[in-house]
């Protein structure tokens, strides 16, 4: 009960963002499926977006003048849009890779290894 009875602050959002971020990073680091890596990227971007929103929100701040205002939401918008673009391109690349190699295992894509 006492957990729900205290107003939410920025830190809460930051914690959630951190968790998602780390999950995404680790997913990127451990998934062998290219699409899995993509999902990890999406998670990472969302974690970052959460931080932006939190910093820009006036609901979460005790003194609203200290926020970064709308910039947070605007940047979040840009992040979302660019993430969409990135997803499209990455998916196209993956499909291409799949057409050529017959697999989406990123560990197989090591032609450029030193």
């Amino acid at each position, binding site marked *: 009960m*006492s*957990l*729900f*009875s*205290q*107003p*939410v*602050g*920025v*830190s*809460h*959002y*930051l914690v*959630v*963002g951190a*968790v*998602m971020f*780390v*999950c*995404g*990073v*680790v*997913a990127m680091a*451990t*998934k*062998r499926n290219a*699409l*899995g890596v*993509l*999902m*990890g990227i999406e998670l990472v971007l*969302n974690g970052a*977006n959460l931080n932006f*929103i939190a910093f*820009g929100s*006036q*609901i*979460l*701040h005790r003194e609203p003048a200290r926020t970064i205002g*709308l910039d947070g*939401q*605007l940047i*979040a*918008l*840009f992040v*979302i*849009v660019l*993430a*969409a673009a990135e*997803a*499209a*391109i990455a*998916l*196209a690349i*993956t*499909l291409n890779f*799949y*057409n050529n190699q017959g*697999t989406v*295992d990123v560990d197989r894509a090591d032609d450029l290894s030193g």
Partner: protein
Amino acid sequence: MQSPIIWHTFFFFLFSFLACVFAVAVLVTSNIVRMAFFLVISLGSTAGLFFLAGADLVGSMQLMIYVGGTLVLLIFGVMLTARSPLISMHTPSGEWILGAIVGGSLLAVLLQIALSPKAWQQGPELPPAAYTAVEAGTPAAAELARDPRLRPPQTATKLGLGLLGERVDKLVVQDPTRRAGMSGYLLPFEIVSVHLLVVLVGAAYLARARFRVSD
């Protein structure tokens, strides 16, 4: 009386729980399709968090573009490349351990940073009227009604004007030098739109069929 529940907080915890749990689920699942599904839920919950933070447009955007667009694309790709060996690819456990260590350290760092400032740890208190039964029409009720957590957020127009180069949220700032710094986002907006166009064309080119459809 016991301290009442703040629904805002409640829903925050609900959504954040969903987000985190399904993020971890995404991480630990090896079935790619399930990963996609969990990701959908996680991102949807993130959209909910956005709504709670007063960013209704961004939340809708999240739902529309991310969940409705990007993830559908993703699942599309999943299905296109769905072969039984590819559905679940085994990752050697050594990497799991390594990833756990590295991710844990990163998480530790991030949490340490996130929790360090005092001012961030709690939001503004509710008005005292929230803890008692108030008469309708009284100033207390009005103050309660004015609390942003109890009101629908109104950011769409501001954001639109911001993207058009007008920062209406900074109108109250008197200092002209500070006003000068609060520029809009018209140019990035245009750049991003052009970038999107290019990306779509490029994606279509990359993913086009290798054979010519005879029609």
